[in-house]
């Protein structure tokens, strides 16, 4: 059969050498793929999925995917590489100059998925529950939990950022990657109604008709990343006929690959009424203040802004401290003293958020993430909602204990043999 059966020189801890006796073929696992005894398709499948060879192949593929994906980060940036290599079933290669995409290797999801099935099958079929396999079982259950937990994180977690100036209070955080077109009705002074249109809809460049708005939105252009055109380089009139975009022109830019920068999208939207066009506005993340629009006595504000996540709790930045080491620019510590207010529960307390010490509240975690080089009163907090954040803690405990048990068993055996 396989090599290790006739290889008594190696001291396999799991199988192969019976305690204190002659080498014996292992009975509890079957490493090869060849079906024996004429099993049906199902048996063959189970055998395939529980084989150790498949494990090794999957691990090797995983290694290749991780390696190539890491190198790719230099070219396409961390986020794009992550989507292409790790969060995918296949890694495609786009044939230059054509829209054709050829799968060249499996992606992280496929390798991870097969490995997961492999692990479960192997345990169901080969190991069962035996005392001397306890370490192995713990390790593998931990790994299964880790893989599932990371999948859940990928699917469920939401990351955003909260930028606060001292004295400012916010009950929302902003997405660092995705933007939305927001139209806010400000007609009534006390009741603001907002309509938001996500990027994915903008990218389709369709005409949008929304019941809350008296006009339809026609998209002339949508650029996921853009830069402003310097006044000297302007060649023709702007696409925009209204608002800030008349004077400031933009052009499309390649997508950002650096991790510390974000794409700055710009959209050119025309507002159409039954009586004709109100004009075309440039809605851009480059513009900070929203642009006013009025029609038939109703007033609106139009802005392209990061997607916002509202929550019932608000944070007010009381004091931001940024310490540096004596005589240098090396940051020593950042900390944000914030006041947390939750009107529903009446909570109102001060919290200190600093490096390596986040605030966990309402299923979300607020981390001290950064600062603004130009404004010492600004803190940037990272907000993460990750329902499965605890799984790595459980799984690492399981695997750690499992590896420890396995390692100790081996060590004890080794020392005993050595003494003998």
């Amino acid at each position, binding site marked *: 059969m396989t090599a290790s059966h006739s290889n008594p020189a190696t001291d396999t801890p799991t199988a192969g050498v019976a305690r204190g006796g002659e080498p014996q073929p292992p009975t509890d696992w079957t490493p090869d793929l060849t079906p024996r005894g004429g099993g049906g398709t199902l048996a063959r499948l189970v055998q395939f999925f529980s084989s150790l060879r498949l494990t090794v192949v999957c691990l090797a593929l995983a290694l290749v995917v991780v390696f190539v994906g890491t190198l790719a980060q230099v070219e396409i940036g961390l986020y794009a590489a992550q989507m292409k290599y790790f969060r995918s079933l296949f890694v495609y290669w786009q044939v230059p100059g054509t829209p054709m995409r050829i799968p060249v290797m499996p992606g992280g999801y496929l390798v991870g998925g097969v490995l997961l099935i492999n692990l479960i099958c192997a345990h169901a079929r080969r190991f069962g529950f035996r005392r001397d396999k306890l370490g192995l079982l713990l390790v593998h259950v931990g790994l299964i939990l880790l893989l599932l937990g990371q999948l859940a994180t990928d699917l469920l977690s939401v990351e955003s950022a909260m930028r606060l100036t001292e004295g400012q209070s916010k009950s929302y955080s902003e997405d660092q990657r995705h933007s939305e077109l927001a139209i806010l009705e400000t007609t009534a002074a006390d009741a603001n109604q907002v309509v938001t249109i996500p990027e994915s809809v903008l990218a389709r460049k369709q005409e949008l008709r929304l019941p809350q708005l008296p006009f339809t939105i026609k998209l002339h252009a949508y650029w996921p990343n853009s830069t402003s055109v310097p006044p000297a380089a302007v060649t023709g009139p702007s696409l925009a006929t209204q608002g800030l975009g008349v004077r400031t022109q933009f052009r499309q830019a390649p997508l950002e690959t650096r991790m510390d920068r974000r794409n700055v999208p710009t959209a050119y939207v025309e507002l159409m009424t039954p009586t004709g066009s109100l004009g075309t506005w440039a809605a851009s993340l480059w513009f900070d203040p929203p642009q006013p629009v009025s029609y038939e006595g109703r007033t609106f504000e139009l802005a392209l802004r990061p997607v916002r996540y509202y929550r019932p709790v608000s944070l007010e930045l009381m004091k931001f401290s940024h310490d540096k080491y004596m005589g240098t620019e090396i940051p020593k510590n950042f900390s944000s003293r914030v006041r947390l207010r939750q009107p529903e529960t009446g909570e109102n307390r001060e919290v200190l958020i600093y490096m390596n*010490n986040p605030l966990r509240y309402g299923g979300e975690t607020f*981390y001290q993430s950064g600062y603004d080089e130009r404004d010492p009163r600004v803190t940037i907090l990272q907000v993460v909602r990750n329902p499965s954040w605890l799984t790595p803690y459980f799984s690492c405990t399981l695997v750690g204990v499992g590896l420890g048990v396995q390692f100790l068993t081996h060590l004890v055996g080794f020392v005993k043999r050595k003494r003998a």
Partner: protein
Amino acid sequence: MKKWLPWLVLALFTVWVLAALRSPRESSEYHTADFGRLPAVLNGRLQPLDSVARNALLVMRGKQSVALDGGGQLSAIGWLMEVTMKPEVADTRRVFRVDHPELRGLLKLPLEGSNYFPFTELQGSLEEIEKQARRANGVEAATRSTFEKAVLKLHFALNTYQRLKNSLRPENSTDFAADLRAYREALAPGIAAVRLREQGKEFNREDFDRLLKLLRNFDAMANVAYPLIVPPVHPEMAGPTWSNLGTSLMESLHTEQIHPAAEAYATMATAYRQAKPAEFNQALAGYRQWLAGQFQPQLDKGWWEFLFNSWRPFVKSIAIYTLVFLLGCASWFGWFQGLNRTAGYLLGLGFVVHTAGIVFRMALEGRPPVTNLYSSAVFVGWGAVGLGLILERLHRDSIGIVMSSALGLTTLIVAHNLSLDGDTMEMLRAVLDTNFWLATHVITITLGYSAMFVAGFLAALYIVRGVFTRSLGPETRQALSRMVYGIVCFATLFNFVGTILGGIWADQSWGRFWGWDPKENGALIIVLWCAILLHARWGGLVRERGLMNLAIFGNIVTSFSWFGVNMLGVGLHSYGFMDKAFVWLMLFVVSQLALIGLGLLPDRFWASLRTPLHPRPARAS
């Protein structure tokens, strides 16, 4: 003789190691060592002037001392005294390393001969260097050519040198002590004149001008002086920090007093210039006494770090490991007992010195052992030597000795080269400033690296001995195979746990357990490789030789994770882009691939396997 020879060698080396702990002999009448122990603040940390001098020299010329033209060596602190107090002499010392041929061409330096040049030979080209550096600075770091990097490096070295020159006194002052006396006298009338002038009243023009002239000099000094050598006036109050001499003298405008440290340094500077060692030593002793009043801890820190600098435990370990390696290899060819024991004892001594060095550094920094790439190299070597000692104790076949001395030696040399970037005890950026995670995650993962290299080296030993010598008998093969397997298990445990701990740290500080950051991926790749190795073996996909080849490939995987990812220059973890290191990394990878190639050779090419295996024939008489 055989019995006591190992002990004798051990005793000799122990004496050699301990002797270096004595205070260095003074080569002149000046109390150089005491001057080197004076505390200062640089890079955000308190350190003795000796460290300031050594690190500056490392950046400039890659060594911690200066070779003198007429033969002999000038110590780092001796050089710093010249730079700060007698710059016209320091200008003639060959301290600037310029080895890029294009840069030498540009600066009209001789293309052949010494790589080290004195300031006097570069002086004429300062403007050109400045111009080239300004241009190179505009180029993005990742795309700079070797020439641009060489220009920037030289520019930085010259800049540091100029700043050092103006650290203890303005460069152009001839008698700084006299300048300070004049300043003290000019202070009160001068300030009065300034106040009157502000009020628009009549003031004494002469007093005003006299003060202004002095202040101009001090202000220039405040802008460039390098280490902060003046302790705070009121250390008991929160907030005050150390300042450089120029800043301190400017502050005298408010306090109307001159800081005792400034007075002391001025006296020393003048005495040194006028070649009056007795006065210099007296001023130095007086200043140390003054410091002892309020700054005893700082004085102690300077004393201890000076001792660490002059002891140089890791250099001692390198020497010991080199000898151990040679003795260990020799023991396979004859007189096994004596050589094995001598090598074993010396290895133990090397390990003790290595450990002492690490503990000393930890005490100085108040940190766990691994805080940057430099200390990780020191620690990887330490872990490997520790594992080797255990293996040697179990097997007594010199394998552990050869392995651990080779790895200890290599990693310490790597560490030495990493130390050329300057201060190796630099302060930690905010996110790394946590002793808990440094002590858990970083240590675990670094021990994991050690284990990977140990397994890889043992496997390489298996192949080299098997192919080139007839010494790889079945017993040795089995022993090596078992060792490699056991060490890989150990490596798996440590790398996995270390990686997971890293994930937890990331979850605590960045809000995600896993972010596919290059350093994280590097750690994951090692874990995957360990898993492949173990599963391939359990599944019978590889036999003994295959296991060895996989373990050698583990060296490549580990070196990529350790150094390669830092060269990618992306991600939150990247803390150093090193291109010279890249060449070395590639050479290492090629060497490991060559070993694997040897490992794949059929049996008939293996000296140990060619003939039917039997014990080595007894030497014929």
